[in-house]
């Protein structure tokens, strides 16, 4: 079984981002970039399926700037076999991205696509579901466990009230939630090996996808700051404030 894993290069999750003074966006100059954490989980899951003998080939694809090669290399060091970089310096919206990925899938014909459930920059949580729609495939989103069962895929999903289990027709789209697995750190020998693995360079035009932006970002601003509170000395004082000042109990 062939698995495709799309990955995104984003601001590292430990970085405290700053909004640009001109309100055009978030300052990305000299900021540490990493693979989106949910994408790492997706790569890990694919690698585990390969180690279990279920997957035969893992292809990693990233749509982004030239530096996204580093993100692909990270995935190759974790165990993926080869990469595809669809090079663009434009900000691609989820629908456009899904259209590009559809083109990649029509060429590569994977049996399953595993993605992160959302990227931690735009927080859209859309691409996997959109891709499933464009392909007419089933979708198992926010997965915390997956198991292949003949020609069906059983997916346990994290939902608001707890967990839900569904059975999907293959081929399927899976989006990874936090508890699907704990991604490995790539070992030094694997990092060296990854340097020799192939990365194909493509452009959006290669897939004749319409990925032009449709949304206008009017502005990006800082969230409203909370006013500084006070420290209370005792539990008794706390309860008094909550009851008599804030009036919430």
């Amino acid at each position, binding site marked *: 079984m062939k698995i495709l894993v799309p990955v995104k290069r984003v601001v590292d999750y430990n970085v405290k981002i700053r909004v640009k003074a001109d309100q055009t966006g978030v300052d990305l100059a000299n900021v540490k970039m990493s693979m989106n954490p949910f994408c790492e989980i997706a790569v890990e899951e694919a690698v585990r399926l390969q180690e279990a003998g279920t997957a035969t080939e893992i292809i990693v694809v990233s749509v982004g700037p030239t530096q996204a090669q580093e993100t692909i290399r990270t995935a190759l060091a974790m165990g993926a076999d080869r990469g595809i970089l669809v090079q663009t310096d434009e900000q691609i919206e989820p*629908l456009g991205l899904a259209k590009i990925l559809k083109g990649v899938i029509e060429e590569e014909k994977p049996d399953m696509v595993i993605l992160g459930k959302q990227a931690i920059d735009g927080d859209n949580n859309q691409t996997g579901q959109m891709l499933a729609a464009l392909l007419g495939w089933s979708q198992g989103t926010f997965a915390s466990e997956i198991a292949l069962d003949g020609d069906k895929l059983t997916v346990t999903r994290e939902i608001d009230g707890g967990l839900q289990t569904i059975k999907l027709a293959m081929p399927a789209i899976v989006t990874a939630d*936090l508890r699907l697995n704990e991604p490995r750190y790539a070992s030094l020998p694997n990092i060296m090996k990854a340097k020799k693995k192939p990365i194909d360079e493509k452009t959006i035009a290669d897939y004749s996808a319409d990925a032009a932006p449709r949304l206008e970002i009017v502005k990006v601003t800082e969230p409203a700051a909370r006013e500084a509170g006070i420290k209370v000395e005792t539990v008794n004082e706390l309860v008094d404030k909550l009851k008599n000042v804030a009036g919430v109990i």
Partner: protein
Amino acid sequence: MSTLLIAEHNNQSLSESTIKSATAAVQMGGDVHVLVAGAGCAAVADEAAKMAGVSKVLLADDAQYEKQLAEPIADLVVSLAGDYATIATPASTNGKNFMPRIAALLDCSQISDITAVIDANTFERPIYAGNAIQTVRTSEAKKAITVRATAFAAVEMSGSAAVEAISATANSGLSEFIGEELTKSDRPELTSAKIVVSGGRGMQSGDNFPMLEKIADKLGAAVGASRAAVDAGFVPNDYQVGQTGKVVAPDLYIAVGISGAIQHLAGMKDSKVIVAINKDEEAPIFQVADYGLVADLFNAVPELEEELGKIGL
């Protein structure tokens, strides 16, 4: 210019988040219709018909919609979408699951997790785990919207819209519901509770959570947790408050033994009053807390229970 609001429900009653999302739908202007898709869910349609500002309720009652799986819901909504400029739903795990599928089938963009309606085509939404707010405008003929319900007040239940039964679309058979494990609790649901008491890594063990439950029961509160507490296995994952868990905005949020990582703050910083109890006075949670108590939680929490008892709770 009209909006179709897809209701979230459990086939018995409408979710609070739907009633709040209706406010966002009304703010977009034009007629608001509500789709109730489920199985044996006529009571939900009747409830939806009471939401002020709603002019019609469409009821699709069919076994395939019982669990609101993405594939059949998307096919149904796409069959109805011709008449609407906006398709909206609460940004719950359900809405987040099916809405992008609908958007892609309609070849329109989705604007996720809106927290404010500026005008019919312009919205505010959080990005980077709530560390920045993006104002985004669309000029497309159709748009899909998921609503962060905690950012909106509930509409009045004073309306009386007509309920119209509609027929189901063919089932693609792509997905099948197998089962679910729902956390059972007599306490209020996290996202709609007026008071939330949450524990973090400082709780040290799941065995210590009953301490918080006692407080919660005195206050009629829901119990939540930070991602650290969930990842450490103290409590199930649906307790998680944060960017990757649930977003809550209660009147009172009590954070116990929670340091206040960015990802947790994103899920609770819109609470009206925040209390932090932590023994580390440098913990970032104190920067957002209205009332901070620097204390060992294992002393402070039992004492809090006692003090609440003294005021008759």
